[in-house]
């Protein structure tokens, strides 16, 4: 990717002396003061993530619901107004195009929120499947997105709005004013903590950032980079596209059966997924703890005895536990929690134990 895009918060990151990397074509902050400190900040108080690289597609028209039911794997008809749904788009062979959030404003108006790294691919895919009576628009460049996450997120944001934030249920949203700015206030996140995501027009980004940091001062609010976003989501075993899921993995083996609704209506990839469901799964995505302090990283092989049984897709040292954790695909017969596996870390084998997610005692509900 030649072009390096900047989010509306880029100058803020520079001023804060963030470590900046090119992520999915965007110059994004990986960390400010350090991944561990930022991670614990979110678990214990409140942190602010610039996630404006995410893509937003507006879907409108009398056939919007029918269109999205065909395009995505979850049951769109189950969504009510002001509700958000975690879902995915699949290829005909069941491989994953992307995972996404779907917002329903009313039966004729929805918003798709996709991964920043997949915006162009996803938009093309959505366009290729467009039907009459639906208008699809890529608003990604106009929309700024901040995620405010942590146990003190609600108290921080409540100071800035008349909307009663406690009334917004998990995976619901409301349109309202916050810091005097019209926005979508969404009770969602990627951390496993109480939190909100604020979709707003980029012309108001700077004011929003400033007001949030002022409101959060008493909670020692801090900016948090993508590095901690990654370690936080790993502790919850939330999938990351490009690491744990991609076009070579299907949602069933990735543990996303709960969003794959095979008994209601036709969608792209359904036949392939029905077949997967009928046959026994070859492998399943698991989370494990690694003994010692080494990190099992993406691509490292997993063994049981002499048999290679899988591959690591994500790994880190959990900043909460100070233990190595990882996510990976493991062959059928070895996927139960409590099972012992071995990870080949640069030529040496290290013991790991499959566990039940999440690895931290945390809940966003």
């Amino acid at each position, binding site marked *: 990717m030649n072009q390096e895009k900047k989010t509306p918060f880029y100058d803020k990151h520079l001023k804060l002396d963030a470590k900046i990397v090119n992520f999915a074509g965007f110059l994004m902050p990986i960390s400010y003061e350090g991944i*561990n400190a930022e991670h614990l900040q979110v678990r214990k108080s409140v942190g602010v993530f610039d996630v404006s690289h995410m893509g937003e597609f507006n879907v409108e028209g009398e056939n919007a619901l029918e269109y999205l039911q065909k395009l995505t794997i979850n049951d769109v008809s189950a969504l009510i107004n002001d509700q958000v749904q975690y879902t995915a788009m699949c290829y005909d062979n069941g491989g994953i195009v992307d995972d996404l959030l779907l917002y329903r404003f009313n039966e004729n108006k929805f918003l798709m929120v996709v991964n920043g790294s997949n915006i162009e691919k996803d938009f093309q895919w959505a366009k290729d499947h467009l039907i009459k009576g639906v208008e699809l628009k890529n608003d990604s460049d106009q929309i700024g997105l901040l995620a405010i996450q942590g146990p003190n997120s609600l108290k921080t944001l409540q100071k800035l709005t008349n909307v009663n934030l406690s009334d917004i249920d998990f995976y619901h949203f409301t349109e309202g004013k916050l810091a005097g700015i019209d926005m979508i206030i969404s009770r969602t996140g990627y951390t496993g903590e109480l939190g909100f995501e604020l979709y707003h027009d980029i012309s108001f980004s700077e004011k929003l950032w400033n007001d949030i940091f002022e409101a959060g001062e008493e909670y020692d609010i801090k900016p948090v980079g993508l590095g901690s976003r990654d370690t936080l989501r790993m502790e919850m075993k939330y999938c990351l596209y490009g690491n744990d899921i991609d076009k070579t993995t299907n949602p069933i083996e990735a543990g996303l059966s709960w969003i794959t609704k095979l008994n209601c209506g036709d969608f792209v990839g359904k036949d392939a997924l029905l077949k997967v469901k009928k046959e026994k799964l070859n492998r399943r995505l698991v989370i494990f703890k690694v003994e010692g302090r080494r990190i099992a*990283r993406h691509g490292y092989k997993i063994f049981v005895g002499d048999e290679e049984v899988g591959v690591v897709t994500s790994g880190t*040292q959990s900043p909460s536990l100070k233990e190595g954790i990882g996510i990976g695909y493991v062959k059928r017969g070895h996927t139960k929690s409590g099972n012992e596996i071995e990870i080949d870390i*640069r030529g040496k084998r290290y013991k790991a134990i499959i566990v039940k997610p999440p690895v931290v005692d945390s809940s966003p509900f």
Partner: protein
Amino acid sequence: MNYPDNLKYSEDHEWIKIDGNIATIGITEFAQGELGDVVFIELPEVDDEINENEPFGTIEAVKTVSDMLSPLSGKVMEVNESLNDKPETINSDPYEKGWIIKIEFSDKSELKNLMDSKSYKEFVGK
């Protein structure tokens, strides 16, 4: 960024403190910043022979893992065992408590490949 004047520096971002024929080796403030939070360090054993530009250990940070290349050849005299429990010392105090190994170096001519503080500062551009 701080690069003390009394140290020598390698292109692999290590600092070297020379004391007679003993060299203490650690990583620079720049290097620890680039790595981010260090979570584990694999150290050589005392008495191991190590060679210039060859790996003598690995340093594991949350985001990445990298080999540490020895700036000098010689024999390992001491390793900083406290890093086993507190690898994050490399981030917080890279030049003092965060030292990594002490070696008895065997080839004085290798010293001329090292930079002084000023040259290293120019080298990293920060």
